[in-house]
C-alpha cells in the first residue's frame, strides 16, 4: 500500500526525465551520501534539456528524495543553471578583468542594443541568448566574445553586427 503511492510518484517522475538522466540519478542514489550528487544531477539534466524546467526539477526532487525547495534553492544559487529555454545561439561575453579593462562593457552594450535583449534573456525571435561569463581565461585575446563554442577575439563594438550576422542576425532597419 505505502509503496504503491510513492511508487506512483516515482514512476511519474521517471517519465519526465530522459532515460540517461534517470539512470544517472539511480546510480547516484546507490552511492554513499547520495544527496551530495544533487548538483551533479542538475548538471546532467541541464546538459540534456538546455535548461532546468519546473517539471524536471520536481522530478529530480522525487527521484532523489530531496525536498523540492532545496532542489530549486540549490539550482538558483548557482549561476551556471538556467531556468528558461535558451536561444538557438548562446552569446557569452567574457567580463573578466582583462576583458573589462579592454572595453568588454561597450561590446556588451552593443550586443544588447542590436538584439534588443538584455543579459540573461533570449531575443524575441529565439535566435540568441546573451550571457556574461566570468573570465574564460583567454585574457590575451580580450575582449573575448563566444557564440556557442566559437571564440571571437579582440572584439570591437563595431564588429558585433558582422559577427551576429554569421548566425542569421538581421539588423532592425533591414527588417522593415
Amino acid at each position, binding site marked *: 500500500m*505505502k509503496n504503491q503511492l510513492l511508487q506512483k510518484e516515482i514512476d511519474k517522475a521517471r517519465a519526465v526525465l530522459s532515460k540517461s538522466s534517470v539512470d544517472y540519478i539511480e546510480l547516484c542514489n546507490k552511492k554513499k551520501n547520495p544527496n551530495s550528487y544533487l548538483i551533479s544531477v542538475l548538471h546532467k539534466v541541464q546538459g540534456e534539456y538546455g535548461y532546468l524546467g519546473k517539471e524536471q526539477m*520536481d522530478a529530480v526532487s522525487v527521484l532523489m528524495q530531496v525536498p523540492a*525547495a532545496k532542489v530549486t534553492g540549490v539550482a*538558483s544559487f548557482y549561476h551556471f543553471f538556467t531556468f528558461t529555454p535558451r536561444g538557438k545561439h548562446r552569446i557569452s561575453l567574457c567580463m573578466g578583468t582583462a576583458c573589462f579593462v579592454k572595453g568588454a562593457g561597450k561590446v556588451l552594450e552593443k550586443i544588447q542594443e542590436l538584439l534588443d535583449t538584455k543579459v540573461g534573456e533570449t531575443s524575441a525571435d529565439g535566435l540568441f541568448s546573451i550571457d556574461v561569463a566570468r573570465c574564460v581565461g583567454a585574457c590575451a585575446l580580450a575582449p573575448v566574445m563566444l557564440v556557442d563554442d566559437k571564440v571571437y577575439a579582440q572584439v570591437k563594438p563595431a564588429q558585433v553586427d558582422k559577427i551576429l550576422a554569421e548566425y542569421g542576425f538581421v539588423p532592425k532597419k533591414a527588417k522593415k
Partner: protein
Amino acid sequence: MTTEKTVTLWIDGVKVTAPAKSTILQAADSTNINIPSLCYHPDLSVIGACRVCVVEVEGQRNPVASCSFPVAEGMKVTTSSPLLRRLRRDIVELILDNHPMDCQTCARNGTCELQKLAHDLGVRERLFEGERKRIEVDKSSPVHRNPEKCILCGRCVRVCSEVQGVHNLSVQNRGFHNVVAPAHDGKMIDSVCIHCGQCVNVCPTAAFTEQDATESVFEALSNPDLHVVVHTAPAIRATIGEGFGFRVGTPVTGKLVTALRMAGFKKVFDTNFGADLTICEESEEFVSRIKKNERLPLITSCSPGWVNFMERFYPELIPLTSTCKSPMSMLSTLLKTYYAQQSGIDPQKIFVVAVMPCTAKKFEARREELKTPWGSPYTDAVLTTRELIWMLKCVGVDFANVEDGAFDSPLGVSSGAADIFGATGGVMEAALRTAYEKITCKELEKLDFEEMRGVEGVKESSISINGTIINIGVANGLQNAKKLLDRVVSGEKQYHIIEIMACPGGCVAGGGQPYPPKGIYVLDPSLARLRARALYAIDESKTMRKSHENPAITALYENFLGAPNSHLCHELLHTKYEPKTPRGVK
C-alpha cells in the same frame, strides 16, 4: 556519570565558568549582559548570518559572532565598545535599508524584533539608504509571506525543516536577490506547506503572518441579518491573557467569555464541547478497531497541521488516521445543524467564528469536505489568538478587569478532559480516560496519565486494559512525529494508538499563539510547559473530567445523533482524507 568539562573566561572583566562546548553568547547568559542578536534562536541550529551579535575577543583580528564562536579557557571577551556599537548599528541599519519603513501600519508593530533592535542599538538616521527589494506579498494561503519584510535570518527555514521536517522553505536565488520561498519561488498554497504557522511564530518581523480574518468577523458582527456565534479552542484560555499583560500560564476562561460577549457575539460556545464529542467518537472508533484488531494504530486527527502533513508526506497512513473531524469542525457542524434546529435559526444565517491557536485551522475551515450542503463552510471564520487579542483591544475591552462569564449551554459545557486537548498528550489522556471505561466497563481510578504529560518530543508508554497491552505513542512537532511514524510504516513497532500534534508542545504553542514576552523564545519548552500547566490546572479543578460523562454530550446523542458512530454521526462528525500533490519529501 561524567561531569561536563568547563572553561573559565572573562566577559567584560567578569569571570565566567561555562561548559567547554558552549558559545560566547551562551556563556554570557549568566552575566546579566544581553548581547543583541537576531538570526540566533536557541532552539534552532546556529548559522551566524546576521552578525548583530558580534563581540571582541582578545587575539582575534576581527570581532566574532558570539552566537557561533566557541568559548575557550582564559578567553577575554568584550561585549560593548565604541567599535562594537558602531558595527552593530551599521549592520542593523543595513537591514533596515532593505526593509519597508511602514512600522506604524505593520502587523508586528510593537512585537517586531528588528524594530526593537533598531531602537535599542541607536539607529536614528539612515546613512546608506538605497534600492530596496520589491516582491509581492503571497496571500495565497493562511500563512502570508511578505518577502519585502524578510531580513533573511533563516529562522523560518530552520523551523520548517529542523522542527517540522516539512522542508517547504529554502533560500532561493543568491546574494542581494536571496528570498525565502517554497520550491520554484512559488506560492505557498501550491507548495508542500502544512500551514502550521511555526514560521510565523519564529519570524522576527512580519515576513510571515497569518491571513487576517478580523475584517470579515467585524463585518459579520455588524450585519443585522447574521447570527454570529463564536467558540474558542481549549488552548486559548491558557494564552490569551498574555496579550493583556497576564503572566504566561494564567488561565482566563471566564474573562475570555465575557470579553467575547462584549465584542458582540450572540453566543459564546466552547470548542471543548467538540473535544468531548471527538473523544466519544474516536474512542468508539478505537474500541471497535481494537476489538477487530484492524487498522491499528489509530492515529488522532485533531491537529490540522498534522492532517495536512499526513496527506502530503504519509498518505499511506490515511487508513489508520481517525476519521473524526476535529473538535472545531464537529462543533461548527453542530452549530449549523443541531443548534440551528434547536434554536430555530436558519443555518444559512448563522455565522460561526472559531478562535484557534492555529493557522492551519484557517485551512481546515476552507476544506471542501468540511462544507455545508449549501456550499459555505461550517466554520465561517477562524481567528488566531493574536487576532482576537487585537480585536478585543480594538473594541476597547478592558480584558484584565472584566468579570468572569460562563459559556452558553449546552454547547459550552465540557469536561476537564477537553481542556487538556491544548497540550501535547492531552488528547491521548482524554481518550484513555474514556476508552478504558468503555472497554473495561469499570471506573478508572487514577485519571492522571502522567506519562502522557510533558513537552518531550516523543513519549511512549504501554498500559494494560483488561489484560490487553496497549502501546501508546505521542509526538509533538512533526520532525518528532516522523520518528514514530517511520516505525509504524516499517512495522518496527506495533502501536495501538498514536496522538500527533503538529506544533512543538501542542496547541499551547500553536502557530497562532501570542508572541511570547521578552526573555522567552517561541520554541522554548518552558513556554509550552507553563501554558500547559494552566490547562491541567483547569482540568484538575473540574469535577467532571471524562468526556463521556459530559451530560450535554449524552443529551446530544439521545436527542439528535443516536449512538456514537451512528449513521448521522458519520455524516456530520466524520470526514475523509486523500493524498495531496505535490507529495512532500521527508
